[in-house]
């Protein structure tokens, strides 16, 4: 479904990715973990072309990443952002149907009917006509997920989807992600929620300094990591004091 082979990326003199490789099968849930600045967001952004790797290969849904394949790749993977990034000038429902109507050129009535179904599934049906500014962070993120689903993606990329939320709102978003995982959706999730990664993810990838330090079955790796750096990171995240 997704294959990343030895990608490098530098911003000026800052070498952010130094040979990252991994693969994700259809239906897999993969969590990307690592300290701040390790390059997790950059990897994720390379998968839908928001960043382009300087070298190496990125294959998504059977397509090699290139100028020509960019728009097709973006239509086949959706992204959910840390800060939600909902369009402030459009209502909740308009946010959800924006892609289907204007990019996929779906019929408006059908797109809106499906949009309302998706909003119902994330528990936001009653807020369809509100503007995003009137919603809490958790509610905005649930709309963000509905907007991602509306594109009928083959995979969804999440970049720290719960990091900007109040602690008591984190669960409602993780719950929805778990149900997506159970339905067999391919998910790639950058997160600091170790418990979520351990319970929901099939595999975990630990990055540091722009390289993959360790990857493996999520439960085993996050319970008993093989690498010292992974162990140190998990200790610090799980016992911050």
């Amino acid at each position: 479904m997704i294959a990343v082979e030895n990608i490098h990326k530098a911003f000026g003199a800052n070498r952010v990715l130094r040979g990252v490789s991994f693969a994700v099968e259809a239906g897999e849930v993969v969590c990307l973990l690592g300290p701040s600045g390790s390059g997790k967001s950059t990897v994720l952004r390379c998968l839908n072309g928001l960043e382009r790797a300087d070298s190496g290969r990125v294959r998504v849904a059977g397509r090699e990443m290139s100028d020509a394949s960019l728009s097709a790749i973006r239509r086949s993977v959706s992204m959910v952002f840390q800060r939600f990034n909902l369009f402030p000038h459009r209502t909740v429902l308009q946010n959800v149907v924006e892609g289907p109507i204007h990019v996929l050129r779906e019929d408006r009535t059908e797109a809106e009917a499906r949009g309302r179904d998706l909003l119902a599934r994330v528990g936001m049906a009653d807020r369809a006509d509100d503007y995003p500014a009137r919603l809490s962070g958790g509610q905005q993120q649930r709309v963000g997920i509905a907007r991602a689903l509306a594109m009928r993606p083959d995979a969804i990329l999440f970049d720290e989807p719960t990091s900007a939320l109040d602690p008591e709102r984190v669960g409602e978003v993780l719950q929805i992600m778990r149900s997506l995982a159970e339905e067999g959706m391919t998910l790639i999730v950058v997160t600091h929620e170790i418990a979520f990664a351990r319970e929901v993810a099939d595999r975990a990838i630990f990055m540091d300094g722009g390289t993959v330090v360790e990857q493996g079955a999520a439960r085993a790796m996050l319970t008993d990591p093989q690498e010292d750096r992974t162990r140190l990171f998990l200790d610090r995240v799980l016992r911050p004091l």
Partner: protein
Amino acid sequence: MAEFLTDSAIFLPVLLRGLYTTILLTLCALVVSVLLGLVWATMARSRFIGLRAATAAIINVVRGIPIIVQLFCVYFVLPEIGINLYPFAAGVIGLGLAYSVYQAENFRAGFEAVDPALLEAAQSLGMDDRLVMRRVVLPLGIRIALPPFGNTAVMLLKDSSIASTITIAELTRAGQLLAISTFKNGTVYVLIALLYLAASLPLAAAVRLLERRMASR
């Protein structure tokens, strides 16, 4: 004071006809300047360097020439190459062109102030540059550009008085003719000043109303 009032009663009908022309001229030039300004601001964001350079050149040239000279160019020079215009049309084109660069600057600043994270959200939905522009940058950028747009509109209203120099019978010219024929310079120019004020305050208020309506969602 009594004389001022009786004179005013005689002058006002003439001046009000001038004011009508001023308002018409301002609104038409405003439309031209907004459309041209949007074109310049959009071209300035083009991925093609040639288009960006051309836009910068146009803006620098137009901004570097006094408005009165631009009006003369449109009114006197164009006929020499076979393009004859009514004074009013020349005024609309000249003022519209002159002001298009200020509008472009307002819009450019507005477009640039749109949160880049929203552009990424739109790109992630598979939108191409044109769609991102139309669905996200334009609607949000124009909202941000509204307050400076209000200023520009009021300035255009006042600068429309320059069109008096190409024989358009707008408020200033109507007043000048009246002053020359009646020798009541004081009365006439006080009335003109009051009428410009009476037109600019509602214009500014209208833009503020538009701002508030757009901000409320």
